[in-house]
């Protein structure tokens, strides 16, 4: 050893350090003594007590998973149910070489490449000691064959399990959602909700849609079986059994026949449709196209199908009705018109002369009407019937953004409706406050103008548009939209009904409502922008077409549909309610890149209303889109 000389030797520092170190050593010793004392207490003083408990632990408790509640539509059609089937399951931690084992298994039971892929994905998502299915829905022959060869496969077992099935496949998939395997994140969530104990033994839970938002009702209460086991853990006898309580059944307000008619009416087109009963808030149809097959998710989706769904340019997993944000376009105008009347900025007889554009005093910027040269003399009635932009530019300017925000906000645009599935987005009804918060900029008068025709910063979901339309149809009475009508226990005894009390009622002048409604009815008659869709209707309906821009058009440029890329074409919108005398249905339709609201969206609404009000099924032709523009032109 070399002679040790302290570098930078500060004797006082060193002394202090050594003192502190000695104190630490003392504390460590003390803590270890505490541990020892506790050992002594547990293992010597209380040994008998714990010994008895450990013996008693030979009575093991096994959870019994309850049957998941069923889902029905309003007429009792089954939308989600369970069936029992055999699965072949592997506990990966008990297996030395998985690859070999699966290869060998496939000589006994058919295992497709797809099963292997799904199993691999499950492995990545699960803990090692979990039992994971390699094959589901085994046939009786396969079960027998495996049973005979069972000794060759330690760690592999056959289990009878309940499976969820969605008999309608893609139909209403965005509403019903699906269940999937419980993952680590779900477990944390369950722990946070103090529900973990009730999920002992459960493998699945709702992941999206009704299956998710009504998980608590659907899951049921887990039962327990007390069993005596021998020292090796084998069951000797069952001591007691607390039966599980099945989950509650749900009756939706959805009419699945109507849903089917609506989905068919879309054909291959992308878009969304929401139909609401104005007098109750019952959601009658809730479409987001394209959909997906929820059955794919139940056993764990394989990566191929997942990539297909997740990477598709059509984004089938996106719930457009709930989460798609679109400028409302001209469907905003009825609410603007009502604001003008209610706030006395316009009277029905006031008319303007429309030169085809609007400019703010002292500005050269032209806000163009969709119709070059304008609509001539336009009063409020005509402004809605022909969807005149100039009228609403001027009205927006006269109202000002605060009035627009306060009045139209009452109809729920730009706000969550509070529907009973998770993931709803709020959209945006712009205000001075919002712009300051978002952009740290004050509101300019110019910002207000395009808001008046539903463009600018405006963003709404199809659900919000349907809700606003239902409030309009209900003469100002608003009900929270809901997909579940009532909740029944497994014996079909009513547990609770979803409330149908109005949320609020707006104080609106009946005369003003009548003026707007008259105009909206004429929208669907010859000369109106939705005249085509109104042809030969056996009931009177009020509607408004809309078109929302996907790409901006520069000043002085013209939108020519044929020159625009498919995905950049305008979205077609239509809102409507019928019959006007006593509205039974209010709906919004959106067709992505559909072009004109009157041509693409309104015919779908007509098909849906014909079925709902008259029970009339569409002839094949009736559902087809109409591609030409009618003589009046209706690019609003």
């Amino acid at each position, binding site marked *: 050893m070399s002679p040790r000389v302290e570098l930078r030797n500060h004797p006082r520092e060193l002394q202090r350090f050594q003192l502190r170190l000695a104190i630490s050593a003392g504390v460590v010793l003390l803590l270890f003594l505490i541990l020892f004392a506790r050992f002594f207490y547990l293992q010597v003083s209380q040994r008998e007590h714990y010994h008895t408990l450990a013996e008693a632990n030979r009575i093991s408790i096994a959870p019994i998973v309850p049957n998941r509640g069923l889902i029905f539509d309003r007429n009792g059609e089954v939308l989600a149910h369970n069936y029992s089937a055999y699965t072949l399951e592997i506990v990966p931690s008990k297996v030395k070489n998985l690859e070999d084992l699966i290869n060998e298994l496939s000589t006994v039971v058919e295992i497709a490449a797809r099963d292997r892929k799904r199993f691999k994905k499950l492995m990545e998502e699960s803990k090692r000691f979990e039992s994971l299915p390699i094959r589901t829905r085994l046939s009786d022959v396969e079960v027998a064959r495996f049973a005979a060869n069972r000794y060759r496969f330690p760690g592999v077992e056959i289990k009878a399990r309940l499976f969820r099935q969605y008999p309608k496949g893609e139909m209403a998939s965005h509403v019903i959602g699906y269940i999937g395997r419980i993952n680590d994140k779900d477990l944390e969530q369950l*722990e946070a909700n*103090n529900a973990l104990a009730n999920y002992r033994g459960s493998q699945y839970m709702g992941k999206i849609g009704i299956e998710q938002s009504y998980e608590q009702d659907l899951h049921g209460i887990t039962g327990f079986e007390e069993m005596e086991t021998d020292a090796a853990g084998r069951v000797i006898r069952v001591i007691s059994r607390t039966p599980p309580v099945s989950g509650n059944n749900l009756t939706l307000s959805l009419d699945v026949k109507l849903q089917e008619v609506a989905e068919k009416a879309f054909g291959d087109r992308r878009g969304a449709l929401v139909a609401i009963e104005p007098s109750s808030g019952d959601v009658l149809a809730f479409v987001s196209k394209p959909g997906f097959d929820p059955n794919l998710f139940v056993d764990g989706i394989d990566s191929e199908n997942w990539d297909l769904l997740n990477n598709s340019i059509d984004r089938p997993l996106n719930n457009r009705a709930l989460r798609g944000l679109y400028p409302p376009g001209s469907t905003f105008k009825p609410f603007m018109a009502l604001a003008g009347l209610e706030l006395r900025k316009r009277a029905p007889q006031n008319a303007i002369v429309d030169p085809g554009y609007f400019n703010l005093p002292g500005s050269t910027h032209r806000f163009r009407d969709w119709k070059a040269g304008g609509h001539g003399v336009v009063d409020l009635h005509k402004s809605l019937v022909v969807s005149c932009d100039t009228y609403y530019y001027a009205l927006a300017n006269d109202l000002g953004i605060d009035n627009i925000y306060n009045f139209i906000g009452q109809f729920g645009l730009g706000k969550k409706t509070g529907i009973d599935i998770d993931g709803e987005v709020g959209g945006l009804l712009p205000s001075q406050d919002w712009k300051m918060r978002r952009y740290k900029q004050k509101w300019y008068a110019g910002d207000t103008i395009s808001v008046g025709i539903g463009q600018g910063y405006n963003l709404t979901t199809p659900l919000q548009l349907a809700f606003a339309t239902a409030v309009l149809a209900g003469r100002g009475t608003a009900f929270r939209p809901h997909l579940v009508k009532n909740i029944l226990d497994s014996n079909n005894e009513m547990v609770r009904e979803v409330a149908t009390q109005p949320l609020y009622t707006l104080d609106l002048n009946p005369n003003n409502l009548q003026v707007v409604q008259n105009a909206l009815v004429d929208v669907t008659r010859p000369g109106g922008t939705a005249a085509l869709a109104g042809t030969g209707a056996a009931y009177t309906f009020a509607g408004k077409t809309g078109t929302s821009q996907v790409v901006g058009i520069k000043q002085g440029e013209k939108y020519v549909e044929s020159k625009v890329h498919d995905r950049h074409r305008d979205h077609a919108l239509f809102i409507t309610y019928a019959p006007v005398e006593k509205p039974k249905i209010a709906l919004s339709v959106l067709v992505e890149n559909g072009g004109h609201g009157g041509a693409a969206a309104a015919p779908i609404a007509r098909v849906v209303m014909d079925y709902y009000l008259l029970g009339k099924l569409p002839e094949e032709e009736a559902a087809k889109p109409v591609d030409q523009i009618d003589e009046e032109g209706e690019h609003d």
Partner: protein
Amino acid sequence: MTRSLQIWHYLTRYIDGILLSGILLLMLTGLLTLYSATDANPNRVTNQAVNMLVALSIMWMVANIPLQHIMRIALPIYMTGLLLLAGVALFGEINNGARRWLNIGVTRIQPSELMKIAVPLMMAWYFDKHEATLRLRDYAIATLLLLLPVVMILRQPDLGTALLIGSSGFFVLFLTGLSWRIMAGLAVAGLGSLPVLWSMMHDYQRRRVMTLLDPTQDALGAGYHTIQSTIAIGSGGTLGKGWQQGTQTHLDFLPEKSTDFIFAVFSEEFGLVGNSLLLLLYLAVIVRGMVIAANASTHFTRLIAGSITLTFATYIFVNIGMVIGILPVVGVPLPLISYGGTSMVTMLLGFGILMSIQMHPKLVKT
């Protein structure tokens, strides 16, 4: 023959024999317990043995680096750690509801693990630099160096790791001579803020604390771990039920029995006698660490050696305390025995530093 002996001497010249013996004995205990805990699963045991070999070779490499070099990288390693933590907060992958991992293209890393070494290194480096003129301001700055990563890790959230890093930093402060008055003040402030902390806790965190007071309150939920582990330990008695004979373990009552709760397996099978021997073995390692700290030649090495040793002791106390039901359940492994590679590597990296401090020629002032 002599040739190979020479090579052997050359290879082991920086290895501290006493420390290594303690470590190897503990590792052996770990493998035996793991074998029982996994129901004789050879995969798990082999995996763990590989983890141990990797960790041991890292320890060997670190032991061969003279401390001056390690000192030089204190600042860069700390800054890198901070950057990575910021990266985790911004782009980290969410796993189990917590954001702890960062994907750096080739692989995923957990920067908080790096900080377990980087934080005491950085603080010791700082104190070493300002050794001659330590003032209150220096303590404040060092505390800031500690709190920054701790708060970032708390927010991931990762209570266990934040706690361990917090204590490793506190040990540096304590050993360097933070005045008793300030510590008393901090303790009083800490106690005073408990009600505030309580009101800020998540429901499930509160439940964990309540469960500590009365585990039977939630026997199938949060209290389950503690109840089952105390039954395992208590029923072990003085001599234990014998290796691979623990009923609690083998009837699958014990959760997480190969990781955080492995001590319950050991304790059920080896009883009070086994527990006492294990504690003594741990104490031997701790005492050796303290001797190394006391003999270290510079302020920096003293602080580092002291902090590493005391943190090691903290791991043991927190883990066993949790398993025997005197501390709340926090995710802290039992050092050298719990299954898992990451903590093993971190632990042996620390021991490598201890060996480097002890075995390299001390700096000599001419």
